[in-house]
């Protein structure tokens, strides 16, 4: 990476409150993305060699995961404990909780298995808010068109329309569960919801709770799930493989219990994958804003069992990840800052992009500044300034009142957000594509649903701020309701990993190695080896922090 302008020099040039114009002749969006977005370029994708999407372009690290062998074989699951349920939800974030709550409300018996702990997810980390077109100056149509445009018209219009139409009802559902939202004034009855405008939208449509909307949402959903007698929560239980019957239908899953260090089989009438994204694979060597468990597990398992995927070469890099200090790299400064009016400034003290453009455009512009020597360099870290001091000058008190998390974050970085700008650079944030689904969240494999970030088709090639929280609840509830209809129905007599054997043949025919295994379950730096942990490999026993009981 080329050097930038030394921080001291850039800082001396910076003036809070300075009047800075936007560039007179901005680079056309298509050109900017092509030249600087990580989705583009000669090494940005490879064609898949096996599976339903053979020949389709895929991000190289994702391709490596998708074209890997299973973690287990028949012998590992012979005679292990087995459970049966109506609905198995895999993943304990917002999408999984919405699915579990809805399925249980319809009388289905639900097991929710999660790799870490219920609620540990990207949902809890969401700051900015959730989109729902409630304003008098807004409409479902505007929300629909904004979403399609931001996604470069690659999203599925019918799925988008359904999600957008669900928006206001999702907000009502959340309020009924006890979630709070910011109001324009302090009138809970008959007042108006506080609305913010996301980058790339044509009306103010972001509803929020402070700048920790995801935390507020997740603590309510987690409590609701925990108190719901129809849902059994299995913490620390990652799924390592799906089960299939003789007709290729999804019949359940193989789960690894990290606490007991053993495999468990769950046979289910319907399986809902809500495993989230892939940030912790650090694609293209980017830092990530994602939580620790975001390792594309659901994507890998769905593909191996025969589900079609889409937009696998498209990821979102959030423009404003922390660049300095390095130990906080990847952490997010919420879009709420730019949404409220914070500007981006390069090493020459200039603005270089309309900050309220969609995320892919703003991120590409920052990467361009850094690549062309106008970035700011501090202790080896390269980025641009996010101008929070001018924001505070223009709207005194905003940092203390509305951008609480941002202020805390500045403190962790060692500065006062009202005095010093942040040094920011794009961070891997979101998987735009995923498992192709229909309007109920059903994948191409019978009995297998997929919702939330692991699914694809709702955001095209770029997601708008606030549409992820809407997506997970809209689709989570729909998949939960549909899956619950299977309650009490006939359950296949056979359940095994026949699809894995077919997959291994395919890999061999394509000349791919069988020793590369997936899903990863934990980031490479977690130092976790499933086979060693389960006692299936000779050698030193695995160590687990906090696992000494």
């Amino acid at each position, binding site marked *: 990476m080329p050097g930038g302008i030394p921080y001291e020099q850039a800082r001396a040039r910076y003036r809070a409150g300075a009047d800075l114009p936007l560039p007179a002749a901005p680079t056309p969006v298509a050109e900017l993305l092509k030249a600087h977005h990580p989705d583009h370029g000669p090494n940005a994708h490879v064609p898949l060699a096996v599976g339903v999407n053979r020949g389709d372009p895929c991000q190289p690290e994702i391709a490596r995961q998708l074209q890997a062998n299973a973690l287990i074989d028949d012998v590992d699951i012979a005679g292990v404990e087995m459970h049966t349920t109506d609905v198995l939800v895999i993943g304990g974030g917002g999408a999984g909780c919405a699915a579990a709550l809805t399925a249980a409300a319809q009388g289905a018996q639900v097991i929710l298995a999660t790799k*870490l702990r219920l609620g540990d997810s990207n949902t809890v980390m969401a700051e900015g808010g959730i989109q729902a077109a409630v304003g008098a100056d807004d409409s*479902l*149509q505007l929300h629909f068109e904004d979403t399609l445009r931001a996604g470069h018209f690659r999203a599925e219009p019918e799925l988008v329309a359904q999600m957008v139409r669900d928006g*206001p009802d999702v907000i009502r559902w959340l309020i009924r569960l006890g979630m709070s939202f910011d109001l324009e004034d302090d009138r809970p009855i008959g007042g108006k919801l506080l609305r913010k405008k996301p980058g790339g939208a044509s009306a103010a449509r972001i509803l929020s709770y402070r700048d920790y909307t995801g935390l507020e949402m997740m603590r*309510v959903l987690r409590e609701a799930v925990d108190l719901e007698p129809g849902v059994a929560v299995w913490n*620390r239980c990652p799924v390592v493989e799906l089960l299939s019957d003789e007709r290729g239908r999804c019949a359940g899953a193989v789960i690894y219990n990290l606490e007991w260090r053993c495999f468990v089989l769950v046979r289910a009438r319907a399986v809902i994958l809500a495993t989230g994204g892939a940030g912790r694979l650090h694609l293209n060597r980017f830092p990530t804003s994602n*939580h620790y468990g975001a390792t594309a597990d659901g994507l890998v398992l769905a593909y191996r069992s025969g589900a079609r995927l889409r937009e696998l070469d498209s990821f979102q890099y959030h423009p404003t990840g922390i660049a300095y200090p390095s130990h906080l790299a990847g952490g997010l400064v919420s879009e709420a800052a730019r949404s409220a009016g914070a500007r981006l400034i390069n090493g020459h003290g200039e603005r270089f992009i309309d900050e309220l453009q969609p995320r892919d455009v703003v991120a590409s512009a920052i990467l361009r500044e850094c690549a062309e020597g106008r970035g700011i360099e501090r202790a080896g870290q390269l980025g641009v300034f996010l101008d929070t001091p001018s924001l505070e000058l223009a709207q005194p008190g905003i940092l203390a009142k509305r951008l609480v998390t941002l202020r805390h974050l500045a403190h962790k970085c060692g500065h006062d957000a009202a005095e010093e700008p942040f040094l920011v650079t794009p961070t891997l944030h979101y998987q735009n594509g995923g498992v192709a689904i229909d309007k109920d969240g059903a994948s191409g494999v019978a009995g297998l649903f997929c919702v939330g970030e692991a699914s694809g088709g709702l955001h095209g090639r770029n997601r708008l701020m606030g549409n992820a929280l809407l997506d997970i609840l809209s689709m989570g509830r729909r998949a939960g309701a549909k899956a619950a209809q299977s309650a009490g129905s006939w359950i296949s007599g056979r359940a095994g990993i026949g699809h894995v054997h077919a997959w291994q043949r395919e890999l061999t025919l394509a000349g791919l190695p069988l020793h590369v295994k997936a899903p990863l379950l*934990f980031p490479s730096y977690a130092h976790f080896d499933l086979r060693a942990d389960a006692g299936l490999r000779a050698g030193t026993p695995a160590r687990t*922090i906090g696992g000494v009981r």
Partner: protein
Amino acid sequence: MDRVRLSIEGRAIEAPAASSILQACVLAGQTLVEGVGCMGQGVCGSCRVMVRRAGGREVRTQLACETPIEEGMQVAFVDYFSESVRHVYRIEDLGDSWDALRRVGEVFPEAAHCRHCGGCDTACPKGLEVQKGVNLAVDGELSAASRVFDECVMCNLCTLACPEHIRPNHLGLFVRRMIAAHTLRPSDLMRRLAEIESGEMTIVLDAPGARPPG
């Protein structure tokens, strides 16, 4: 970069200064598959640790992702737990909001037994005035109580600390949920819901704005 030596789960490790406890674990090659979630944002409440600093006697509870390491620090993870006895309620079944005070007492009967020991305040890694929040809820000052728990990340450390089994963070969340579910009725949301449900507002799938330009 300077190195710092400390002990995590009884194991001596070394990591670069300015690392958080979680980063130190990972950088030192330890296996880390529990007690971790958001990895730095401090919102998931999973990485609960007990920390004793060099030369000190006091053991503090903190979040490992937010706590920088120090020379000679001793760290032990606090496992999550699931309790056999719970304060069970369904937010949909809370009924008449005139009964709000009575419901607090019914669902959280222990809250009135607060000994004012301050254990919850000491345990809170976010520095919330937990005990005050509990007392306000018991006194019926529900709005004030809810504000105390506004930034709670549900790490459950106060619940672990309370000798009366009050489960303060769950009480706080109960009050916050009850207030939202009972009082939040935004006019713009109600109007838009009515427009959608009556069929007055619809989406035109093939409108010009839904197609790529040109």
